[in-house]
Each structure stands twice: as structure tokens, then as C-alpha cells.
């Protein structure tokens, strides 16, 4: 039996610019990304019968309880046969594509748009949240959670700051080749080491950018995609895994749910980590790149720091990773821009940053601290 994942594909991609402030509403950005993705697929608005949305983090605060998909769908004039919002943090973008693929496989809809958009410039402090009673101890923000992970990784496996820095400067180099990237000025290891600590051991250059941006993709059936404008990119496999117990988990700060999510996705695709030509890994902080390289099986647990040395993540390295610069340098695209870049690589549209003969891409999403994870394996048709 062919698995659900193999019957759907990505037929269109769309994005807005990324910048610290775009001066437009998140709704306007989301609508622009949707319009661009549907046009890229060569479809008309009336042909869209599925809409899945991820409310921006800032928008979630502003809009309170109004379901995000409801208001965006109304503004786009859509009465879809399938809809909803995904709110599992940075794992949402890849999870939306999975929901779309499942809905299409089940016959619930045929052309499903998935969109993320956010305007943190309009909600200062939105990222400085605390969870539970953490605020009483000054436990605020995502950098703190990931600093705990980095410290433990360093203590258990000898991971070095220079290895985290290698990730930051490699992704920046990729962003320098990406016209729409938010930060394109190359950095050196000295720049990295000189950047101030935010939450030690994480420095400013270990932390992703904060961006106004929106991105969207069109998911459809392989049959429908055959007549469309673009060569479709196949959704060959996908998976999710979550660690809701967090602090109490035996794997806390050591292993991400990426290991379980990846196993499901690779099995569905009938592929292995050795088949991956390009990786687009969720990189809210440098340390999670190292952890994912281990948990996805690109190297053994504890060897992620060594793996990233000697240009392994570069465009002609062992595993070209975050080829547009990722959250660290392309900008904060909520994970949706990782999917968009994977599609561009597999279509061969990346110009100076194109990975030669890219046929298999792995995309990940990691969210809510260390709690949620989603994986997509995309292939050139």
C-alpha cells in the first residue's frame, strides 16, 4: 500500500519580503503570500478548497480567541471544504503541510493553501514570555530554554562555542547569496565570539532574527498537479513527535522528538538520512541544529558539534543545510520559509546558492521550547 504522504505534492510557493519591520498588517502579509503561492501554481482563487493557517505569535496575542483561519478565510473570500489553524509553535508550518496532505489523501479537499505570517514589530515583547510560574525565577523567553540545552550538551559531549559559531557563519554565508535575506553581511568566527551573551552560553549570534514576514505553499494531489504550471515537488514522507512532558522527560535537553518524527518520515518515504541532499533545519538557536543532526541520524548522539566543523553544512559540504540562511540569517519565517527554500532547491531555482543535483530535501519544525517537532521529506518528481 502506498502511504498517505506519497500522494500529495507542493505545487506553488509564495512569500513576502522579510524585515525587522514591514509596516503592514499580518493579514495583508498573509494575503500577499497566499496570492503569490496560488499564482505560482497557476491556479485561480476559486480553485482553492482548503485553507490551513498558522496565526503569528504576535497576532495570537492581538486577536485573542477569534479563530485565525476564520478571519483570514473571510478576507480571502474562501468557503473551503477543509480548514483550521495549527498552533504547535515552530513545528506548525511542516505540520500544516502534513494536514493538507492527509486531507487531500482522504478526499476532503484538492487544493489546500497553508500560510504563516507574523508581525512581531507590532507586538514588542511578544517573544519575552514565560511559562507556568517560571517568571518568579526569571525564566523568560526562548533563549533561556535553549541555553539550558546548550549548556547540557556542552557538559555531556564537550560541544564548543566555536562549533555553534560555525553554524551561525555558515548560514550567514548562505544568506549573503539569498537576495531576500534579512541579514546578508558575512560574519567571521571572531565576530561570533565577540557578540554579547544573551543567555549564556548563547550569544546574540546564536539567536534567530525577529521578522515581519509571511509565506505560503499550495498542496495538491499528484494528479491535479500534473496539469499545473510548475513541476510539483513530492511530499514523500512526513512525521511528527512531541514531548509534552518537557522537564520531566527522561530525554529532556538531551534528545529532541526529532528522532521519533524522523523515523516515521524516513520510513514513509522509504529513504534514509544518507539519501538527503539538502536539509532545512529549524534553527531558532544554533544548538538545535546540532541536536537535530544527531537525532535525525546524520551523526551519532554527541557528535553533532564535530559534524558541523570543516564546512559540512556549506553548499558543497557533506550536508548542505539552511541554504537560504535559515531563521538565523534569512529571517524568521516560522518554518514556512524552510519549506519554501526546500521547494526552490528541488526545482533548481536557487542560482548562486543552488545545491547541485538536489533531489531529496529534509525540512524540520521545532516548537514551544523543546516540546513539538515535525518533519517533511520532499523529493524532486
Amino acid at each position, binding site marked *: 500500500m502506498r502511504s498517505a504522504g506519497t500522494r500529495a505534492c507542493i505545487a506553488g510557493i509564495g512569500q513576502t519580503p522579510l524585515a525587522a519591520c514591514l509596516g503592514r498588517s499580518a493579514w495583508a502579509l498573509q494575503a500577499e503570500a497566499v496570492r503569490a503561492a496560488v499564482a505560482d501554481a497557476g491556479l485561480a482563487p476559486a480553485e482553492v478548497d482548503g485553507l490551513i493557517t498558522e496565526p503569528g505569535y504576535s497576532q495570537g496575542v492581538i486577536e485573542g480567541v477569534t479563530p485565525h483561519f476564520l478571519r483570514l478565510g473571510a478576507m480571502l473570500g474562501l468557503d473551503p471544504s477543509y480548514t483550521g489553524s495549527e498552533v504547535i509553535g515552530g513545528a506548525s508550518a511542516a505540520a500544516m503541510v502534513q494536514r493538507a496532505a492527509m486531507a487531500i489523501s482522504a478526499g476532503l479537499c484538492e487544493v489546500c493553501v497553508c500560510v504563516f505570517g507574523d508581525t512581531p514589530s507590532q507586538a514588542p515583547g511578544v517573544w*519575552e514570555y*514565560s511559562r*507556568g*510560574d*517560571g*517568571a*518568579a*525565577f*526569571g*525564566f*523568560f*523567553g526562548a533563549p*533561556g530554554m535553549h*541555553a*539550558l*540545552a546548550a*549548556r*547540557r550538551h556542552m*557538559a*555531556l559531549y564537550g560541544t564548543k562555542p566555536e562549533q555553534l559559531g560555525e553554524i551561525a557563519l555558515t548560514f550567514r554565508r548562505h544568506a549573503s547569496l539569498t537576495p531576500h535575506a534579512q541579514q546578508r553581511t558575512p560574519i567571521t568566527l571572531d565576530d561570533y565570539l565577540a557578540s*554579547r*551573551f*544573551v*543567555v*549564556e*552560553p*548563547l550569544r546574540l549570534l546564536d539567536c534567530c532574527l525577529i521578522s515581519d514576514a509571511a509565506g505560503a505553499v499550495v498542496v495538491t494531489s499528484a494528479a491535479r498537479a500534473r496539469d499545473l504550471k510548475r513541476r510539483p515537488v513530492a511530499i514523500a514522507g512526513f512525521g511528527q513527535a512531541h514531548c509534552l*512532558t518537557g*522537564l*520531566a522527560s527522561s530525554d*529532556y*535537553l538531551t534528545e529532541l522528538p526529532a528522532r521519533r518524527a524522523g523515523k516515521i518520515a524516513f520510513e514513509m518515504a522509504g529513504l534514509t538520512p544518507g539519501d538527503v541532499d539538502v536539509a532545512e533545519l529549524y534553527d531558532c538557536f544554533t544548538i538545535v541544529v546540532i541536536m537535530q543532526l544527531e537525532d535525525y541520524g546524520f551523526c551519532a548522539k554527541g557528535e553533532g558539534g564535530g559534524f558541523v566543523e570543516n564546512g559540512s553544512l556549506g553548499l558543497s559540504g557533506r550536508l548542505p543545510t539552511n541554504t537560504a540562511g535559515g531563521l538565523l540569517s534569512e529571517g524568521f519565517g516560522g518554518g514556512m520559509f524552510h519549506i519554501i527554500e526546500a521547494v526552490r532547491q528541488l526545482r533548481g531555482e536557487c542560482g548562486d546558492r543552488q545545491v547541485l543535483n538536489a533531489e531529496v530535501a529534509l525540512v524540520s519544525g521545532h516548537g514551544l521550547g523543546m516540546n513539538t517537532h515535525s518533519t517533511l521529506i520532499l523529493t524532486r518528481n
Partner: protein
Amino acid sequence: MTEVAWPLPKPDAVTQPFWDACRERKLCFQQCDSCGHRWLPPSVVCPRCWTAFFTWVPAAGTGAVFSFAVYHRAYHPAFKRLVPYVVAVIELSEGPRLVSNIIEAAPHELRVGMAVRLEFRDTDGLPLPVFRPAEPEQQP
């Protein structure tokens, strides 16, 4: 200059017993009456066997640093005068883990795995459970 209010915990039905115990300078975890599992953060059932019968048990107050992070920036004005301060995950000798602070220690002297002991720090009227490095005779 007026003092900035500390972001005190906001107890709910589930966490109230934990914070009530802190007022009596006790750090309590939950222990399952059925399977013996011990846990934090507070839950309404045993996270292992789902029985709803459990007991709040005071911790001995010893534990080890599971990991720690040094905040060089204050995300809340109450912490401005404390920067750099240490947020840590502490694993109690009994097993449960909690987020807390390590006080009275230079950040560069801290290590993952080092022994710590509990004390309560009065904060805007609430004794908060925090930790400091254990004295040498208390090191394992």
C-alpha cells in the same frame, strides 16, 4: 524610586498546594499512592499510572544541577539589578526536576551535575525555593 513588583507565581487549583507548602518553607513534590512514582510539575493524576490518589511529600532539599543558564539580560524590570543571574533545572535527590535559581555562586564556578541544597528566599512576601552549591561535606 518605587520597587518593581516581582512577577510572583499565580497559583491555580493544580499548583496551589505546591505554593502553600512554600509558605511553610517546604518544597513538596507529588508521590503516587498506587505506583510510588514521584513527580513535578504538579498534576491532577499520576503521569505514569493515571491514578488520582497521591500525597504531597516534602523534599529533603538536596539535589544536583541538571543544567543552568546565565541571564545577561533582564526580560522583566524586577531582574535588572540581578543580572547576570542563574536560572537552573535542578534534579532533586528524590527524582523530580524543577526550574529554580542558583544563588550565592559565581556563574563560572557552576557545573552540570554539581550538588546543591535548597533554601528559601523571601520575595515580596513569598518564600521562593532556590538553591545554592552544597557545602563540601554535602557533596556526593
